[in-house]
């Protein structure tokens, strides 16, 4: 029996290691002293390169040291994707001794951190006559992205919104007149079909999908269709339920079905790759992709010295807003999401922390963060400045789409919805000839109900 025990122990120990990883623990690196503050940020996912991120944070650290020599600042950079940073943060936040004072986070996670009791309300800092200029300069929609139940939990540092980016040369070759501005979803499909007919070997249309792309995939893909459909809702705030079936959602999935079935999209493993979010600008630059559901950051990758320099992009690339399903009012739609700064509930030096955020949000820092990350600055005065307009292509154009942008639901269970909708759309890419809209809807419903229960979902029967 001793042998038995050893074997079981050996096997179990491997498994337990994984269980322990799940059950908690984690390296403590970000801590708050009573005197100083710490900031947790992503050096790997926000700015275009790690070098840019490191230089930016070094610069703000120096600015802070000069202005506040008696309040030490501890920057803690985290690598990996946005999801990796949030997982790391979630583990650090489990103990006050490892919780950072300030955190740079995607706005889609603000709801989850707030519902955990991890974030401090910033109302006292942004209300009344003493509200800082960067806050009062933000459009109301941007201010509300991190506001839950009247409490402001984070302040936006930059946004991404959606639109359509296309290679003019490839569309012209397919007989499409420039400038191309689709009025309905059918116009997009028609143009993609024309490209596919003219050049069958290129990818006519990139519609982001796949579970690996996470919430950013929705921001850059299916979310733009859902918000432009006749039922522009992911979550029904009146009933507190997730919408898993509606004429608008069915039309959205039908769009994905058409793209897959008619061979208009990219190969499935390229679409489902974890790096797929970054693929479209590179493919377009190489003349392999004609039309892409895109985001305002795309053109920044074509700047000199960037990942895919494309000097001719200003004349070879076009951008258009995402039309609504049938061209119904308001005619265009867009997702909007971004990153924000928040203060932890356990921070012992909240006043200094907000002072630090005010420094991070200075016009110069907003502008450099936006140009290095492909963001639209949250403060309108910076977003409409000449310096921002000339920093990259289509900046003012995408700034206008942001005004009608719809943010994602600020709900702790958005991650469940994310996986469900990404699974539903990727099923078309995997099984283009067999997957149906009704089966995709039912997949989505079952994934959410398995996780959140049958009372968490609803069906909307009419277009609204």
């Amino acid at each position: 029996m001793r042998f038995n025990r050893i074997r079981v122990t050996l096997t179990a120990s491997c498994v337990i290691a994984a269980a322990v990883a799940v059950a908690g623990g984690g390296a403590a690196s970000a801590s708050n002293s009573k005197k100083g503050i710490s900031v947790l940020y992503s050096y790997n996912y926000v700015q275009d390169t790690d070098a840019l991120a490191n230089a930016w944070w070094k610069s703000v650290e120096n600015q802070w040291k000069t202005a506040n020599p008696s309040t030490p600042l501890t920057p803690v950079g985290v690598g990996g994707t946005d999801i990796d940073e949030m997982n790391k943060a979630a583990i650090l936040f489990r103990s006050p001794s490892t919780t950072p004072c300030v955190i740079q986070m995607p706005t889609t996670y603000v709801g989850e951190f707030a519902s955990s009791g991890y974030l401090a309300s910033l109302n006292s800092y942004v209300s009344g006559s003493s509200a800082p200029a960067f806050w009062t300069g933000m459009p109301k929609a941007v201010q509300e992205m991190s506001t839950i139940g009247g409490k402001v939990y984070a302040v936006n540092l930059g946004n991404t919104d959606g639109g359509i980016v296309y290679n003019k040369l490839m569309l012209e070759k397919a007989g499409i007149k420039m400038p191309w501005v689709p009025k309905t979803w059918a116009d997009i499909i028609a143009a993609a079909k024309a490209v596919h007919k003219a050049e069958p070997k290129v990818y006519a249309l990139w519609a982001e999908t796949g579970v690996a792309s996470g919430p950013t995939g929705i921001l850059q893909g299916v979310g733009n269709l859902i918000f432009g459909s006749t039922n522009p809702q992911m979550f029904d705030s009146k009933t507190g339920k997730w919408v898993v079936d509606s004429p608008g959602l069915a039309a959205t999935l039908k769009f994905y079905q058409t793209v897959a079935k008619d061979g208009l999209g990219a190969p499935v493993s390229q679409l489902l790759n974890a790096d797929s979010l970054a693929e479209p600008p590179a493919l377009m630059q190489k003349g392999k992709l004609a039309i892409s559901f895109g985001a305002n950051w795309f053109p920044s990758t074509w700047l000199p010295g960037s990942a895919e320099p494309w000097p001719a992009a200003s004349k070879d690339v076009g951008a258009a807003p995402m039309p609504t399903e049938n061209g119904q009012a308001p005619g265009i739609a867009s997702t909007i999401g971004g990153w924000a700064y928040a203060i932890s509930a356990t921070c012992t030096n909240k006043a200094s922390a907000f002072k630090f955020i005010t420094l991070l949000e200075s016009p110069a820092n907003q502008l450099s963060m936006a140009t290095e990350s492909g963001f639209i600055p949250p403060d309108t005065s910076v977003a409409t400045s000449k310096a921002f307009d000339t920093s990259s292509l289509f900046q003012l154009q995408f700034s206008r789409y942001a005004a009608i942008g719809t943010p994602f639901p600020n709900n702790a269970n958005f991650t469940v919805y994310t996986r469900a909708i990404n699974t539903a759309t990727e099923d078309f890419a995997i099984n283009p000839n067999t997957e149906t809209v009704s089966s995709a809807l039912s997949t989505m419903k079952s994934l959410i109900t398995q996780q959140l229960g049958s009372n968490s979902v609803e069906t909307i029967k009419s277009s609204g």
Partner: protein
Amino acid sequence: MTAVHDASELQFDGIPVDRADIKKFKWSSILWLSPAGILVMALFVLPTIYALYIGFTNMQLLGPFAQHLSFTGLSNFDRMIHDPVFWSSVKMTLVFVIGSGIIAQTVLGFALALLGQRAKISLRATVGSIVILAWVLPEITVAFIWYAFGQAGGTLSELIARPGDDLLATVPLLIVCVANAWRGTAFSMLILSAGLRNVPAEVDEAAQLEGASYWQRLWRVTIPIMRSTIMVNMLLITIGTISDFTLIWAMTQGGPGNETAILPVYMYIQAFQFNDLGYGTAIALALIVVGALLSIIYVRQLRPELKKAQ
């Protein structure tokens, strides 16, 4: 019948002496055992107990129950029993462990070991080095190699003359299984090569003199002699494969859908993507049960060897 003796009864020339056949407990041994004991307690026993506790709660990574968790009894396990994805995950785990680990790695490793035995030393060394290279490569590197190999336009689809086929999406479990077998075969080859060297040459020669063919000698002489080596090799493969996460996560993230979400991956998805630490830990506990069941099978199979050793 074994008589129980009190060590103090034994005397030599009237002086009590210790019996050599009964080890007497010494209090000082606690001191020597304490470092190992503390490590085992801190790194294994306590985390196991904690994981067991978390499995019975609604603890979240993020959300209302992140800080204010409560005991929820068997609800996580009840949910697991009724969760179709969990059961499909169990099936995939078994396919992955048994198919790509136990069977494929053992058969391929044994084949390479046998071929190596008959090959020239230089050829054996060259092939062995190439095979071992796959084993020493970091798992993440192996994942990217096979990711590139299996996607549309990759070498694999070119080899089967269907360059447009996206095998990683159409047969994802098969591709990750092949990748795992490719990576782990070298380990089996090393273990089984060492085992083959311990098979007495005279036994094989005797069988040959009796007119046994190569396959008969392999099946009836070599494999039975190597039985315990093969079983231990399979056990080690099982341990290494059942908790594998990196390879699949880097290649498919458990997708498409949940088609490659073996238990460690499904556990991660629940705990770190859906924030449900309680349910994720319950899945981890289920993984322990699966591992324990497989271990019991090995122990039963190795019982004859153990009896002989006693």
